[in-house]
């Protein structure tokens, strides 16, 4: 009889004491769970700790409410049947409820329940357990939070929970995070082989958080093993290299984005200035008119069509803006510029006058304040490429748009009959005229084309900046420099000019600030033009005039 009772007692002790081991077994979880519940009520502090650890390791969502109640000091034992209850004090009595379901279980007197005392050490264990349990939360956002926290504060205990959570997790993103967190937990493992293996998995990472996790491993004060130290240092170096590469890619992308804006602004100039030799200081205002046309089209859509169509207003705005600015451009050419051919300085001044008038017209109609042009849904948002480099859709679409415009224009010049006539007039006006080309009409159409492209650029630029009467002024100096830098009359040069200016600008910015970066670029161009007065891709002309 005595032997039998000793056996049973031993068995219970073994069961409770071996609970963490049992937790790794897939089946029999429920038994372990129940046993752990018993352990919570045990009088020994060590047993309680072990039980909490077991509950956390099981990843059973029922444990969450239970542990919360325990942490809050509200978990009590009903004396009548030894059941665990949540007891809320109501005067002299307690209102009981089920710790798992929250169901009411009646009111009892103070004497009918026993409080489970919780000390600080236990409370700490409960918090840790809860954070581990969050890995199993049905809410994805909560799980993500928990994974991030696990990555930041790794511990060997966390590893068990992470292993368990990995089995159930379906979200690929979260799985990746958990694997990393698992490795992070293994970093703090006392076993050298574990640490080395963890470092190995991290070497391919590009996360600054992981880099800071590895930092203590290469430090002699915190890591005793030299082999681990060298491995950690190696891994950090590789992470640094990768981060530098990502920064480079990020800068490059930003530079290309700025370059595409410059390209859009300058591409129309490449026609009016590059092909026709007309300095059109009102070019910026054509961009501004395009942006305001976008605004008007948007307002029309808001006023006249159901909201569902608003997403497509840009598709309408693009041709409308092209037409509006092309007409203004044609009027400008016929009304002013054609009287000034061969007098570039006078053209410059007259078109400047036109730009002032256009600005004031827009200011009188739309007011001097900024107008808001909304991004359609398909242009908002973006996606993360790698290592925190976010590509926003509006920038991406503008890059694509800029290239599309350039290619379309090049094709028009190269393959269409109009393009042929245009090139003929630029190369030899007299000869073209003698061959029957109506040069005046070609002039007007060329100028309208350049202006229309500026208007289309305005549609794009309205998506990333303010629409104000001064919009054009912000682009005019830059776009002239792009054309001059790239080489007048060469579309290819305009592309290279815009891209290199954009990229150089973005690479200078981190070192010198945005303003000084711009100043440096301007100084560079001024010096560059001294060296190659006709730009990067100069058309060959008479040497005497160079």
């Amino acid at each position, binding site marked *: 009889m005595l032997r039998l009772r000793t056996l049973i007692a031993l068995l219970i002790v073994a069961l409770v004491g071996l609970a963490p081991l049992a937790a790794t077994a897939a089946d029999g979880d429920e038994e372990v769970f129940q046993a752990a519940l018993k352990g919570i009520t045990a009088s020994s502090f060590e047993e309680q700790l072990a039980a909490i650890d077991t509950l956390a390791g099981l990843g059973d969502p029922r444990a969450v409410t239970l542990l919360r109640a325990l942490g809050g000091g509200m978990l009590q034992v009903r004396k009548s049947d030894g059941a665990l209850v949540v007891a809320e004090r109501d005067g002299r009595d307690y209102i009981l409820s089920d710790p798992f379901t929250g169901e009411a279980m009646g009111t009892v007197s103070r004497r009918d329940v026993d409080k489970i005392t919780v000390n600080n050490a236990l409370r700490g264990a409960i918090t840790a357990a809860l954070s581990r349990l969050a890995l199993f939360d049905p809410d994805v956002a909560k799980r993500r939070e928990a994974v991030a926290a696990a990555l930041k504060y790794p511990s060997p205990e966390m590893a068990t929970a992470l292993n368990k959570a990995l089995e159930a997790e379906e979200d690929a993103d979260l799985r990746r995070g958990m694997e990393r967190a698992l490795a992070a937990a293994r970093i703090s493992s006392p076993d050298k082989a574990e640490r080395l293996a963890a470092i190995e998995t991290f070497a391919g990472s590009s996360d600054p958080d992981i880099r800071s996790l590895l930092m203590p491993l290469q430090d002699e004060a915190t890591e005793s093993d030299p082999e681990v130290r060298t491995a950690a240092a190696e891994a950090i170096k590789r992470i640094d290299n990768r981060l530098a590469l990502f920064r480079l890619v990020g800068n490059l992308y930003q530079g290309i984005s700025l370059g595409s804006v410059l390209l859009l602004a300058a591409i129309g100039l490449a026609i009016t200035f590059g092909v026709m*030799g007309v*300095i059109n*200081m009102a070019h910026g205002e054509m961009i501004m008119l395009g942006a305001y046309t976008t605004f008007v089209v948007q307002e029309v859509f808001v006023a006249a069509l159901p909201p569902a169509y608003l997403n497509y207003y840009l598709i309408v705005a693009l041709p409308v803006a092209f037409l509006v600015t092309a007409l203004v451009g044609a009027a400008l050419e016929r009304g*002013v510029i054609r*009287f*000034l*051919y*061969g*007098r*570039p*300085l*006078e*053209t*410059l*001044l*007259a078109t*400047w*006058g*036109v*730009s*002032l*008038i256009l*600005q*004031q017209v827009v*200011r*009188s109609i739309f007011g001097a304040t900024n107008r808001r042009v909304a991004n359609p849904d398909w242009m908002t948002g973006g996606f993360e490429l790698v290592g925190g480099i976010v590509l926003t859709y509006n920038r991406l679409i503008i890059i694509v748009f800029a290239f599309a415009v350039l290619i379309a224009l090049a094709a028009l010049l190269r393959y269409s009959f109009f393009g042929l006539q245009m090139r003929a007039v630029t190369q030899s*006006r007299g000869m073209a005229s003698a061959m029957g080309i109506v040069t005046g009409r070609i002039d007007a159409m060329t100028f309208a084309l350049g202006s229309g492209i500026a208007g289309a650029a305005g549609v794009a630029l309205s998506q990333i900046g303010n629409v104000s009467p001064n919009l054009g*002024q912000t682009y005019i*100096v830059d776009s*002239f*420099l792009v054309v*001059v830098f790239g080489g*007048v*009359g060469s579309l290819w040069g305009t592309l290279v000019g815009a891209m290199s200016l954009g990229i150089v600008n973005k690479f200078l910015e981190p070192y010198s*600030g945005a*303003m*000084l970066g*711009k*100043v440096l670029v*301007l*100084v560079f*161009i*001024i*010096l560059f*033009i*001294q*060296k190659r*007065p006709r730009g990067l891709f100069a*058309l060959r*002309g*008479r040497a*005497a*005039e*160079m």
Partner: protein
Amino acid sequence: MGPITRRIGTLQGPRGWAVFFALIAIALLVPLLNLMVPAGSLFYVPDYVVPLLGKYLCFALLALSLDLVWGFAGVLSLGHGAFFALGGYAMGMHLMREIGDRGVYGNPLLPDFMVFLDWDHLPWYWYGFDQFWFASLMVFLVPGVLAFVFGWFAFRSRITGVYLSIISQAMTYALMLAFFRNEMGFGGNNGLTDFKDVLGFDLSTPGTRAGLYVLTVLALGLAFLICRFVVKSKLGRVATAIRDAESRVRFLGYRTDRFKLFLWTLSAMLAGMAGALYVPQVGIINPGEFSPANSIEVAVWVAVGGRGTLFGAIIGAFTVNGAKSFFTGWAPEYWLYFLGALFIIVTLFLPGGLVQLASRVRDGFTGGRNRGLRAARRSARATEGETSHAT
């Protein structure tokens, strides 16, 4: 009489000299009428008029300097506002130093904005500006050196026409961006202001303002004579030839870049002087003066008056700025329409500006006396056309 004085005598005909001195006398009458005549009198000139006219005179000086390079060497600078502003900043720095410990923060050495930015010492480039002679020297030296370096590179590389216009515009644009930065140590966005006095004279008193005005009149008169002297000299004639047909002049063996560089640097120094006289009369200088739009506006003053005539630039500066004051008081929203229309009308219909209009009216549209000028213009147009076809 020495050869130089004899040549000064022949700068203009007796009628020219008479008009010159008459205009100077009329200009000098303004402060007299302001200070001597009682306030109620018919001939009294109100206080605000003196600095206003003083401002116009500074603009006229700026326009004159641009006409020297544009009208006589064919170099259209769209960055002359930069030289003007640099001269203004040099003078402004002296005025800032002269405030001494009377600033808001009472720091005897540092201007208020530096105290505000927590700077503990004066940047090296502010040294010496407490001396008036040094500041006056810098007024000429800073724009002069910048113009020399810029021009030396530009003209040597044979950058002409609109290319030069664009890079001079980029120059002033870059300077504007740079001066907007607080770290540059020129007061950033707000620029330099709150001046107290100059050489011990209180800037807010009518007497000091009259003094500055007189100084500006004399400076403009002197600058006009200097420009006249230069364009009448052999050098000036070569420059005019460069304007009309640069390649031909170069083929004849002239170093055209040097002629242009001389005029360019001289012009920048005159523009700097204009800025230095402008700042104490207006009481502020900020980076906005560097804006490309300002520099282009100067070109329209010259164009309106008539380029290549020197006195046309002065007339143009007064006309356009007078109109600006009128419009901004009467109907500010129409000012840009007017200015824009002016740009277009003058370039389309009045390439010779008001001076040409006056002579046309005087000649009853027969065009007898200006045949030479017009012929020169035609040939200029022809060569410019040649250039543009080649590109």
